[in-house]
């Protein structure tokens, strides 16, 4: 197990390196220039000013030199400064990290709380009206884009209660009510969507397990149905569900671009989109690396969890 863990951790390095190279290349291939863009709102900034600033930012250096600087920075865990704001990239990310983590945790919690019982009930009551209602509910979650639900949610709150979620983020330890007043709405909207995926996965997974011999044996032994479902069926059907929920968490970490926009949540997704639009290479590179790390790391944790949940799985 120890060897497996060390091996997997070491394998993260080439993966992240690949991501870093790919991001570096893609950002340079895409047309656009951070400096020209910065001055795009005024028609009176001459080209020489733009050229001079490009020079100051090191954007006129040959690509291999820029790449060497970037890689050297990564090796020293120095991700550079934002080309747009000139603040250290770590500072830009730090301010939004807490918000994105909290939103991802809240959404995942809500999705899990909804998905597990609904998925199990739908499986147990297969083809009954309860199953149909749950399936319609989950298909609804898949069909309706989160941002659209978000707009509806805000509109409903404003029209019915003349109230909208707070505009400014307050950390949960400063004011839990204010904090939740802002984040619960996007968490609900996103959580609903992701609960739909997890509900469907739980349902099909439980259905599969319910047909297994050991479940029949458990019933034949006279165990109560609740015990059969919870202790025998659910635990053994959890592996794919955990995969889905974990990867959703990793995705939620930086992927709530539009929802963040709609709810004016100052998270990492919005930061990434702004950085891409502004051709802020250093910030995009750092953010993509961070998201990739979260994906790879969560994947690794899931693999380790497999062994914990299913004793048949052993890593050598």
């Amino acid at each position: 197990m120890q060897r497996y863990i060390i091996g997997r951790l070491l394998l993260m390095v080439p993966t992240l390196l690949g991501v870093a190279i790919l991001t570096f290349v893609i950002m340079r291939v895409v047309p656009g220039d951070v400096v020209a863009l910065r001055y795009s709102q005024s028609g009176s900034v001459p080209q020489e000013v733009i050229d001079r600033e490009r020079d100051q930012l090191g954007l006129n250096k040959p690509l291999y030199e820029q790449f060497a600087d970037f890689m050297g920075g990564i090796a020293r865990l120095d991700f550079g400064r934002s080309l747009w704001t000139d603040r250290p990239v770590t500072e830009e990310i730090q301010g939004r990290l807490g918000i994105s983590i909290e939103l991802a945790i809240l959404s995942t919690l809500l999705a899990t709380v909804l998905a597990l019982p609904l998925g199990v009930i739908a499986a147990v009551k297969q083809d009954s009206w309860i199953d149909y209602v749950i399936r319609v509910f989950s298909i609804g979650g898949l069909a309706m884009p989160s941002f659209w639900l978000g707009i509806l949610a805000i509109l409903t709150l404003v029209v019915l209660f003349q109230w909208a979620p707070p505009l400014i983020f307050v950390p949960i330890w400063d004011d839990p009510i204010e904090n939740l007043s802002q984040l619960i709405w996007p968490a609900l909207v996103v959580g609903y969507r992701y609960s739909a995926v997890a509900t469907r996965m739980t349902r099909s997974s439980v259905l599969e397990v319910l047909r297994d011999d050991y479940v029949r044996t458990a019933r034949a032994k006279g165990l109560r149905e609740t015990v059969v479902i919870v202790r025998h069926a659910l635990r053994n059907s959890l592996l794919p569900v955990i995969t889905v929920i974990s990867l959703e968490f990793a995705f939620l970490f930086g992927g709530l671009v539009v929802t963040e926009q709609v709810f004016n949540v100052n998270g990492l997704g919005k930061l990434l989109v702004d950085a891409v639009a502004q051709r802020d290479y250093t910030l995009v590179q750092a953010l993509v690396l961070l998201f990739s790390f979260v994906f790879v790391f969560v994947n690794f944790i899931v693999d380790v969890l497999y062994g914990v949940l299913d004793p048949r799985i052993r890593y050598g």
Partner: protein
Amino acid sequence: MPQRILMAFAALSLIVSACTPQQPAAPTAAPPTAAGASPTQAPLPTGETPRMGGVLTYIVSAAPPTFDGHQSTTFATLMPVSPHYSLLYRLDPADNVSKIIPDVADGLPQVSSDKLTYTIKLKSNVKFHDGTTLTSADVVATYQKIMKPPEGVTSPRQGVYAAVESVTASDPSTVVFKLKFAAGSFLASIASPWNYLYSAAKLKEDPKFYVKNIMGTGPFTFIEYVPGSHWSGRKFADYFDKPKPYLDAYRAVIIGDPARQTAAIRSKQALIEFRGFTPTQRDELSRALGQDLAIQEASWVCVNYVAFNTTVKPFDDERVRRALTLAVDRWSGGEALSKQTIVKAVGGLMRPGGPFAMSDADLEKIPGFYRDNAKAVEEAKKLLADAGVADLTFKFHNRNITTPYEPVALFLINEWKKIGVTATHEVKETAAYLADLRNKNFEVGLDFNCDYFDEPDLQLSKFRSASGLGKGLNFSHYDDPKLDGMIDAQARETDPEKRKQLVWEIERYAMGEKAWMVPVIWWNRIIPYIATVRGYRIGSNHYTTMDMANIWIAEER
């Protein structure tokens, strides 16, 4: 394992799709203005006594890229940062269009008879937020930074001060600007909203001090900036223009999404947004808030231009360019488009209604501005035939910002159909769009320009030769020494009436004869806000009078 790979792929696809700009929807008919939502004029100062206190929360639609006004060209810096600074001169907040008044200057400048020397006295009671007194040395250091920035410091408007020979302090309260040649725009250029006055001592310590720090003489001191979220400031007790500011504090909240902006005003979380809303947003707020809402509207020193890539055929032929501008019925277009987006007035190269605007009667004589569109269409068809161009087809290059770019582009494409020209709408995200304009990687495109003042030197800077001073600005990529000479001549003319005549000559030549780059319809600012906000007068731009010194909040009725 395959399941996990599939899930990872799905998740990545979602990220990619979320990051991909959406193509705009197909053109639709202009929605009618809501009944009962007709714009009302805001309660402007009518002898009410300003109420002291309160916190003004307002919306800014983007985050400031820098704290340094000298290095910025965006309202996203001016709107949150201006309350911390003073200027030498400023636009009168009660007018906010063309009247320049002193800010820290003690009266208008004394101008020598040859109009080459401007002597400016400073008020004696102006304090920086650190308690030091503002002197002429600070003004000199500020303008030297703007005009001749030290190594490593950018000054995008450096070229605006090409006429200035020197700026010196003749005594601690007097600043002297000496010009190389008389310049009609000089007073306007030292009333620029970007020219925050900085401390000479701070600039000496670090020329980049103001990129990340705030220390001015403005009505509000700095509290905090949370990147991407909000900016706040509190009243400066030693502000020189007492009893201002009236507010205890202000908070600029960054909200990019238009729907969330509307919801913020509607729920009164924010009281105002100073850049401008669309007619749809105005009507929605008007319906929802009724008498609690005030609305101000004004024409805007912002316009879209049709830029022709004159380095490719057939757009190198002025007959083709003239045909394309002739086909556009701007008069009816302005009326129709104003119901759905932020354009309205028809004008030439100078803002309609502004001090340099040509009269409608004169404008109507220029190709592209005829009232009789049928006649214009016939003339356009003939021009295309003379140029030997049949079934002209091109891609019309545009950016992926809906307001007002999309409706304006669709309007133009529709107008060009009348002369048998087929233009395909090609939308790109802003960075790629700009790169294409700069690199001549387009045929015909929609360009834009916004300025802080009705000033020919500003509005005509795009029209200079692309290989000269227009490099990086002139996206039609032409060289025209005659036009350069005409622009120079108006810049050096100090008699306002004569200058107007010269500007109008330029308009006739650049738009009518050459059709190098032609304006479409000028923008229209719409500011719906909670009626308790007082002391704000909409202006012709979204850059000036952002120091919040005159704004106060009345009690709710």
